[in-house]
């Protein structure tokens, strides 16, 4: 799949991984096991591998959806266009070994193995997820801010955007033969959006390893944008100077803009964006600007007409 590129003169892994951090995580994992034995649950869902990850203050206090809903109703077109296709077929995806190559306009390009990524200090982020199809969920992700990763590779001065490329393997992905989207799935953010503290690289949910249908082993989560902006099963991250050509924007440019911020005021020809159904609830609730994250992110778009840049 990916070719490991050894950068001559690049940093050795030992320099990048903070040793102290590594030890601390080791201890925490051990503690989680011990406290589970003693019945001292550090969080509500203590059984999983990442149960000890501290809950971030950026989490919403809303009740998360059930694991059944989160893992049973997925848009992951590589595995088929029906919501129940990914739960049926995504188990075929081999998530180990896995590498994420971070490259492009950066000082220190690097190929991260999945275990390297797990060395970042992980935290729990309970985020709202709003799909452009008019439904929403609340998901307790486990991950680390993308900014931490980008800081390691040091974007260069002319870097403007970040492109996220998802895995493509037609042998294990029954959906890619159907020509519904251009493959591989590509998404993108402006560099400042990518560096925003809310932008998360998720490796787990509900305290455990990310299920395949949710984008294992590592995916993007951008909670103030429609769900399709958050690429799944990422293998390559490119820092670039031009706005990337993204999957849904290319498929239907008038319906899906590059920004695709959750915006109840921008009409969509198929689904009302003014309201949403929170799965598990009857009736609809109003959709909030930037999916309720306006206080944190509105500044990114100061002076922009979001009806034009939808």
């Amino acid at each position, binding site marked *: 799949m990916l070719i490991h590129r050894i950068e001559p003169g690049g940093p050795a892994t030992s320099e990048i991984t903070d040793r102290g951090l590594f030890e601390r995580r080791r201890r925490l994992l051990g503690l989680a096991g011990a406290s589970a034995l003693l019945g001292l649950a550090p969080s509500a869902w203590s059984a999983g591998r990442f149960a000890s990850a501290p809950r971030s203050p950026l989490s919403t206090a809303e009740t998360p959806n059930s694991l059944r809903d989160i893992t049973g109703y997925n848009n992951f077109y590589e595995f088929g266009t029906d919501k129940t296709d990914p739960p049926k077929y995504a188990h075929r995806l081999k998530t180990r070994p896995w590498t994420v190559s971070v490259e492009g306009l950066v000082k220190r390009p690097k190929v991260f193995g999945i275990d390297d990524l797990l060395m970042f200090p992980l935290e729990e982020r309970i985020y709202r997820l709003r799909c452009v199809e008019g439904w929403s969920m609340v998901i307790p992700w486990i991950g680390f801010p993308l900014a931490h990763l980008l800081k390691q590779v040091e974007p260069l001065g002319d870097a403007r955007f970040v492109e996220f490329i998802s895995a493509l393997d037609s042998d294990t992905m029954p959906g890619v033969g159907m020509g519904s989207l251009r493959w591989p799935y590509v998404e993108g953010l402006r560099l400042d959006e990518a560096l925003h503290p809310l932008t998360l690289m998720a490796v787990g949910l509900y305290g455990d390893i990310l299920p395949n249908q949710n984008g294992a082993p590592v995916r993007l989560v951008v909670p103030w944008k429609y769900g399709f902006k958050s690429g799944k099963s990422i293998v390559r991250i490119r820092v670039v100077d031009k706005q990337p050509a993204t999957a849904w924007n290319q498929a239907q440019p008038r319906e899906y803009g590059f920004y695709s911020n959750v915006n109840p005021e921008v009409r969509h020809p198929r689904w009302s964006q003014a309201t949403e159904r929170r799965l598990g609830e009857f*009736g*609809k609730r109003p959709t909030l600007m930037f999916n309720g994250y306006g206080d944190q992110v509105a500044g990114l778009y100061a002076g922009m007409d979001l009806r034009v840049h939808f």
Partner: protein
Amino acid sequence: MPSPAQLGAIRLALLALCVAPALWFFAAAWTDHLGANPVEAVTRGLGDWALRLLLLTLCITPLRRWLAWPWLLKLRRMLGVTAFVYALLHLAAYVWADQFFDWDAIFDDILHRPFITVGFLTFVLLVPLAATSTNAMIRRLGGRRWQKLHRLAYPAAILAVLHFFWMVKLDIREPLVYAAALAGLLGVRLYWRQQARGAVRTSCGGRCSPP
């Protein structure tokens, strides 16, 4: 030709088959077997069956001719009415479960979401057909006028398929299947019409104008 008793049994069996999907959806919703988004599953399921029954209704005439089973005609009205009932349930699911009587949102959908505009038009075309499907109405209208009115089933079926096409985000395989079936059903009728015209022409040596 089945006896009246046999025909009654056939109609009853067909009615039971038509009612089964609705009961299934009701039971599945009741027992929480419709996944994370039951409202969507029910709305779509009822829409699917409205379209399937509409197309099945349009199958009766070709089947009747090919099999030379004139009695099939006696099943057609029932199929058409069940198609309408499913469309009504589909609409009810949308108005009640999906939008919860938010009339502003409903009108906004009808005006601004092309697929819903078309679904609405489909429904509007089906209403007069359902309303005139009693024996008394057929007598009042007279056979010819009734038949003419009921040709609205063709544009209704076309619009129903378009409704489905415009609903899907990207993957058009499912609506394509229905479109192909409908094209076959309409195509065979066009073919017959051409043939009938040809037959008239040859019967008068090609000199008379078609009726």
